[in-house]
């Protein structure tokens, strides 16, 4: 990894500027892959238990042509949308780039963590297909879908037209299950994000990545797949289930492959601290950028992780807090390797700095009245730059609300101080569990369907765990009657069934016990304070 060539952003009054964007080697995803047509080096190593399978750059290009041919035969043309329902596998890469070659928009769908039986589309997939106007779905043979299923690559002619459609892919993000919200990511936004990240970290073809993040997720797709393609390094890919089941495999792979880069949400590092085993037998001295993002980055977890594996050669400062969101393709600001610690103490907790903007990107913090905040003053984080989405697909109103005079409103709260951005909270009060976002209102509505509770009698929010080592989802339910035991069980079961999320804590209280405004609306922030560790009501 070479030293970053570009200076980090310069702070003015509550503004950070990533500096001018340098030219991109390729502006189309298809061209980035096509350029490596004769590059036989391994790009992706897929690890399945003890087996592993390599996909070279040239092999990926050939595979993408096969999928493009199969899609073309199924009637997909330039300008159409194609859903991708595949695990971390050559088939995902082939079908995703096959769509790119045709000039079709790829629409990655969530793949289930736990494999089992015949593949079936995930909860909410039908709405995603409808919103994205998908024409076909690339999925394993036998997948039941309301659209033509393209299950294998084939041979045959197709019309290559990669510049036909502006939108490279649609990234589904924080919408509710019934009304999924898909960020439209243009070709240029995607390539800007991939190069921006690689340049910020000084990544080169000599880097080696290890990742278990799903490719359908922005961090896996852009942060792993596209960033490695942009500069041409190799990545060892694990399935999420493998790491959840055997967290040590992640460490062992980083050790044996001399990984310099890995990426995960905070809970991944927490998993390694709790269940990654001892540092003995591991060599982690090559790891220079262990990115932590996509959910709140917690100093307690970073410190515990770095301390635990220091005897294995892990450097202090190897974990780099980063900030991004699907609406900006992925990364907004990154801590650079070797950058000084610029944490901020706020209300008795340490808020890690998430670095400075990627090149071409500007960040400001605004007050509720729209005026620019001062340094050290909290406000909403606003983003402008080459990776900002075009909008939410088929949602003109939501799109209009997401922007203010050319700036993307992130909905996240932050502070600019010490020349760096710090994320302090979320305006939308989103609950993030294992990288997935949930609206409290969705959770509350679901709970209210199965429990006899007064109006606004359910509050869902997340609170910090002890030692700032993670977040937990707390659901507080006001009860009209004393039916305690059954209710907690019912609520927990219904939430996993309806939304696929586990409530970490369910608290039952008397009717009227939740803090409300005079008009009867919930005060969630106050709930969170009251029910955080040690602050139980």
């Amino acid at each position, binding site marked *: 990894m070479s030293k970053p060539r570009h200076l980090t952003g310069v702070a003015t009054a509550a503004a950070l500027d990533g500096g001018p964007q340098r030219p991109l080697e390729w502006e189309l995803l298809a061209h980035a892959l096509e350029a490596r047509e004769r590059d036989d080096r391994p790009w992706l190593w897929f690890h399945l*238990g003890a087996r592993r399978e390599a996909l070279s750059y040239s092999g990926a290009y050939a595979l993408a042509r096969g999928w493009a041919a199969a899609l073309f035969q199924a009637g997909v043309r330039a300008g159409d949308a194609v859903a991708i329902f595949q695990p971390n596998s050559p088939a995902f890469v082939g079908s995703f780039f096959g769509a790119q070659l045709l000039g079709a928009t790829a629409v990655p769908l969530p793949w*289930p*963590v*736990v*494999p*089992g*039986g015949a593949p079936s589309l995930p909860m909410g997939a039908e709405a995603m297909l409808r919103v994205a106007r998908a024409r076909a779905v690339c999925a394993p043979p036998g997948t039941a879908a309301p659209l033509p299923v393209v299950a294998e690559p084939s041979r045959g002619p197709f019309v290559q037209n990669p510049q036909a459609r502006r939108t490279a892919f649609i990234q589904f993000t924080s919408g509710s299950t019934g009304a999924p919200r898909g960020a439209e990511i243009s070709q240029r936004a995607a390539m800007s994000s991939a190069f921006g990240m690689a340049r910020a970290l000084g990544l080169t073809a000599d880097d080696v990545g290890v990742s278990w993040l799903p490719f359908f997720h922005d961090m896996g797709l852009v942060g792993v797949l596209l960033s490695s393609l942009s500069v041409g390094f190799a990545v060892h890919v694990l*399935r999420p*289930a*493998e790491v*959840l*089941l*055997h*967290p040590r495999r992640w460490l062992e792979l980083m050790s044996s492959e001399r990984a310099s880069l890995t990426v995960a949400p905070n809970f991944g590092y927490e998993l390694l601290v709790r*269940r990654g085993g001892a540092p003995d037998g591991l060599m982690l001295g090559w790891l220079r950028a262990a990115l932590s993002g996509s959910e709140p980055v917690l100093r307690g977890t970073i410190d515990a992780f770095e301390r635990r594996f220091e005897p294995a050669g892990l450097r202090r400062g190897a974990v780099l807090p980063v900030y991004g969101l699907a609406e900006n393709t992925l990364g907004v600001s990154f801590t650079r390797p070797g950058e000084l610690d610029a944490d901020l103490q706020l209300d008795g907790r340490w808020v890690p700095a998430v670095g400075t903007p990627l090149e071409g990107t500007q960040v400001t913090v605004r007050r509720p009245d729209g005026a620019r905040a001062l340094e050290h003053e909290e406000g909403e984080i606003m983003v402008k730059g080459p990776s900002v989405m075009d909008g939410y697909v088929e949602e003109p109103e939501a799109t209009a609300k997401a922007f203010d005079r050319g700036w993307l409103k992130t909905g996240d709260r932050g502070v600019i101080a010490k020349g760096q951005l710090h994320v302090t909270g979320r305006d939308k009060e989103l609950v993030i*569990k*294992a990288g997935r976002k949930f609206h409290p209102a969705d959770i509350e509505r679901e709970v209210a369907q199965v429990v006899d509770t007064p109006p606004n009698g359910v509050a869902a929010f997340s609170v910090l765990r002890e030692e700032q080592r993670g977040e937990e989802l707390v659901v507080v339910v006001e009860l009209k009657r004393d039916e305690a*035991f059954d209710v907690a*069980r019912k*609520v*927990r*079961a219904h*939430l*996993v*069934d309806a939304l*696929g*999320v*586990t*409530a*970490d*804590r*369910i608290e039952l209280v008397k009717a009227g016990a939740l803090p409300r405004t005079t008009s009867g609306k919930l005060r969630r922030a106050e709930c969170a304070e009251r029910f955080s560790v040690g602050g139980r009501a």
Partner: protein
Amino acid sequence: METPADLDARIIKLISQVVPVKPEQIKRGDRLREDLGMDSVCSMELLSMLAEELDLDVGVEDAAGIRTVADTIALAARFLRAKAAA
């Protein structure tokens, strides 16, 4: 020698560490997802803890058919028998 009842109790205790349900409220017939509210990340964590505690080499594919507390216990028993036979 561990009796089947001991194994039941051990696994139920593990489950109660993954989801906030008291051991005495967990029954063999409970479904991990529908009755105990475990999402997929939780159920993998349960199998991971089980593999660690009993020193078993549980694979991702083994996780596929696990739906209930009883399935989990049966999986553990099967692996323990295989280990004893080896």
